[in-house]
């Protein structure tokens, strides 16, 4: 294969999976080197003031002004790394899964976001910690009973469209797999408090898919 001269990439995000993980996975799947800059929450206020849109993740390409938006960066890495079909109908299938995963991420992260910024959800800014925790526990039990199984069911149904699914869309890895893997890992590794890791196992194709993708050499090495 021709060695492509690529720019230097730096991905900046917090030191947890969150929205950045699907991009880290994409870089690994694509075999593209990148600096995985992880910042502490204590560093964030100063960085936030200097960032273009008061958000991370950020992608810095060859030291130029950084670009924001995890899904934009994901697609960019996908384009460079052959993880994003250019055929419109194939890309449509990939984008549908990427969008669904974002909805899934939003749904299961809501209790966390309410805790971070209660005012944005109609709660008093000084709401006592135990009240927030009670709200979060309540919302999480609904997530576990309803929303998470519903989303996992969608991905299971997608896999069921193929007799022997290799990846979530088609026969080769795409950015849809990067996004889905990030979400499945969040559930499987207990990143969301109160969400049992076993929820994925109720969906046999999805559980098998997860095991298969985790066995890919670059992925296994990354999470070793």
């Amino acid at each position, binding site marked *: 294969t021709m060695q492509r001269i690529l720019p230097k990439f730096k991905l900046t995000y917090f030191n947890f999976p969150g929205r950045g993980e699907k991009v880290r996975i994409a870089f690994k799947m694509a075999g593209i080197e990148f600096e995985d800059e992880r910042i502490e929450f204590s560093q964030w206020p100063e960085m936030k003031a200097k960032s*273009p*849109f008061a*958000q991370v993740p950020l992608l810095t390409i060859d030291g130029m002004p950084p*670009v924001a938006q995890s899904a934009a*960066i994901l697609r960019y890495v996908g384009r460079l790394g052959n993880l994003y079909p250019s055929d419109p109908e194939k890309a*449509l299938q990939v984008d549908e899964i990427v*969008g669904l995963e974002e909805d899934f991420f939003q749904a299961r992260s809501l209790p966390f976001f309410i805790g971070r910024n209660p005012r944005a959800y109609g709660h008093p800014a000084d709401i006592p910690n135990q009240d927030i925790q009670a709200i979060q526990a309540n919302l999480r039990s609904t997530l576990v009973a309803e929303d998470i199984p519903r989303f996992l069911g969608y991905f299971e149904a997608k896999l069921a469209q193929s007799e022997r699914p290799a990846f979530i869309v088609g026969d080769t890895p795409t950015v849809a797999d990067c996004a889905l893997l990030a979400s499945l890992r969040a559930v499987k590794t207990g990143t969301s408090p109160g969400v049992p890791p076993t929820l994925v196992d109720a969906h046999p194709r999805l559980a098998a898919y997860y095991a298969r993708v985790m066995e890919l050499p670059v992925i296994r090495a990354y999470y070793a």
Partner: protein
Amino acid sequence: HAAEHPPKFEGTESEKTAMPTYKLTYFNFAGAAEKLRIAFKVGGVEFEDERIEFSAWPELKPKTPYGQMPLLSIDGKAPVAQSGAILRYIGRIADLYPSDADKALEVDEVIGLDEDLMRSMGPSFTIARAPQALGHAADLPEEDRKALQVKLRAALAADEIPRFLGYFEAKLAKTGTGYFVGTKPTIADCVVLATLRALKSGWLDGIPTTLADSKPLLSAFYERMMAIPALKEYYAAK
């Protein structure tokens, strides 16, 4: 000066013989589908603009792949969901979405920022419709819901909306072409136009319709896009 008088965009000729048939299904209002309708129009691609009444939705919902709309059906095939996916599909077939990775990154960044802005408005709807989803009492009285909604909308009008409009204004200043990426409309322009229309429409109770008026480049952008013949015709017919 090219930046002050950008070339007028007249629309794209579609190759009608080769094109599949498209049906877009959504409710009978702007919402998440308007950017898609705009993209079809700007791209010169014919489509069936199917609008569902709220009363028809409960029966239709379980028949959809993910219980949501908008949906796109290509040549009568099984519908595809997710407005971001449909948007990019239209972009690819209508030459509104660059294939160059760096240009596409710019487009996707704008689309993502717009999504963040629209998402920030979400709780102010949910608080009225289903307060328990945000950790409030399910039986929260109507007047309490309304009071919380007013508070949330006031914060949006004071903080989030001006902040994001500022980002879009700065992006237009950086491009200098009158469009968000490059020298002609992309799906990024379609998305921001839909948002500006939503803000101007008074659809958001408690959000002044004039928030974008203080942004000169956004205001000029709005006029420029609305002057595209296909859009002018589409909105005149409403």
